[in-house]
């Protein structure tokens, strides 16, 4: 249970990379801009349906598409998420307004647009959270709309509502979960690969460091042996000791500097 909660927490934080998030947002807004124009065309079949909600939703889609184009190089994922939810609210509102008129007609398959939007949200939302919000907005608005119908109308439309819509919403959440869980696993795999690469580099560094430090130590040890045996080579051996001690100092200073950089980086993050 604890594992499930921790995984859910991680999933709720899952977002696409900024570039991908904006790419998916542009897809979603283009879909709504064109799709709601199609909806407007369909709504014309029933004269009493007000055309402004679908046109406003379509316009919203075009506006978001424009924003995507203008801000494509300096946009955050958070902005993409907000615009995505706004686009979704526009669509849900248009469906919510038109559904009672369709429901009064004889040949209506209930909440088709909302069901399709649930599936689309699962597949093209920029984050798991926005997918869940969008699915709730589309599914919830349809279920809410269903309960605003008169009992007679509720009985007349297709059997199984609103459970069919709830089923679509549920399946959409499962699809979104699978999609973002896969992304989460990909990210973990990438991190593991990068960690493995870092450990490999550190390992090589330690190998080199060992060699780098042991050579001066060996030189000092040999110089001491030379001094024990001979006075003639004294000055030369002492100079060699000094040089090699200096080499060790340089290595230690380099290590200290590296450690300092690491500490500074740690503090800033």
């Amino acid at each position, binding site marked *: 249970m604890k594992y499930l909660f921790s995984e859910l927490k991680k999933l709720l934080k899952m977002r696409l990379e900024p570039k991908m998030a904006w790419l998916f947002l542009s897809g979603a807004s283009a879909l709504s801009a064109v799709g709601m124009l199609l909806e407007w065309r369909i709504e014309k079949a029933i004269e009493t349906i007000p055309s402004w909600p679908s046109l406003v939703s379509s316009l919203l889609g075009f506006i978001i598409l424009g924003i995507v184009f203008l801000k494509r190089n300096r946009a955050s994922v958070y902005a993409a998420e907000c615009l995505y939810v706004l686009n979704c609210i526009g669509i849900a509102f248009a469906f919510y307004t038109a559904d009672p008129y369709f429901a009064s007609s004889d040949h209506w398959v209930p909440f088709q647009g909302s069901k399709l939007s649930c599936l689309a949200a699962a597949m093209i939302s920029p984050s798991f959270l926005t997918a869940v919000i969008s699915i709730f907005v589309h599914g919830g608005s349809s279920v809410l709309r269903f309960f605003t119908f008169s009992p007679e109308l509720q009985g007349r439309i297709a059997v199984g509502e609103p459970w069919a819509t709830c089923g679509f919403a549920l399946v959409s959440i499962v699809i979104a979960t699978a999609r973002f869980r896969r992304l989460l696993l990909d990210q973990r795999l990438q991190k593991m690969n990068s960690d493995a690469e870092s450990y490999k580099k550190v390992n090589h560094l330690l*190998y080199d460091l*060992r*060699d*780098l*430090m*042991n*050579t*001066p*130590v*060996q*030189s000092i*040890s*040999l*110089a001491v*042996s*030379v001094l024990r*045996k*001979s006075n003639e*080579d004294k000055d*030369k*051996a002492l100079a*060699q000791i000094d*040089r*090699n001690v200096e080499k060790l100092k340089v290595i230690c200073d380099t290590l200290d500097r590296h450690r300092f950089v690491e500490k500074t980086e740690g503090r800033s993050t």
Partner: protein
Amino acid sequence: MDLDCVKFLKAEEVGFMDNLNVNPEVIIVDDSDDLRDLLIAVLRLYLGIHCKGFLSLDDLSKHSEEVLGTKLIILDLNLGDMIPNGMDVYHWLTAQNYAGSVIFLTGHAWNHPLAVQAVATGRPLLTKPVNTDVLVSLIRETIGADLV
């Protein structure tokens, strides 16, 4: 003539030999100038043998006749970046049918790939810092030199 006197004379001869063009008994291949010079000095002082140092495979190959005539080659495994390492030198020596002994010397740990390759040759491998007495006794055993 007592034994100490013989040893003294031997050491003096070695000193002269450094200046003369005499074939060395031991060759040291190491990229560190200090370490190379100190190894030469230690072997001269402790074993009274004439040694010569080389920096790299390129340096060795220019003196191949002299190199292939020595009894022992002390070979550092790491000879610097981007140049042939000690194992490359060893393979070159094998290809030249070198008949003498080889002792590998390394600052790396035993599990370093180069150290593993060196151990696989069956030749002795010493890891730095090696105790002077251990080094001297191993060389003495290998070439059969007397202590000075």
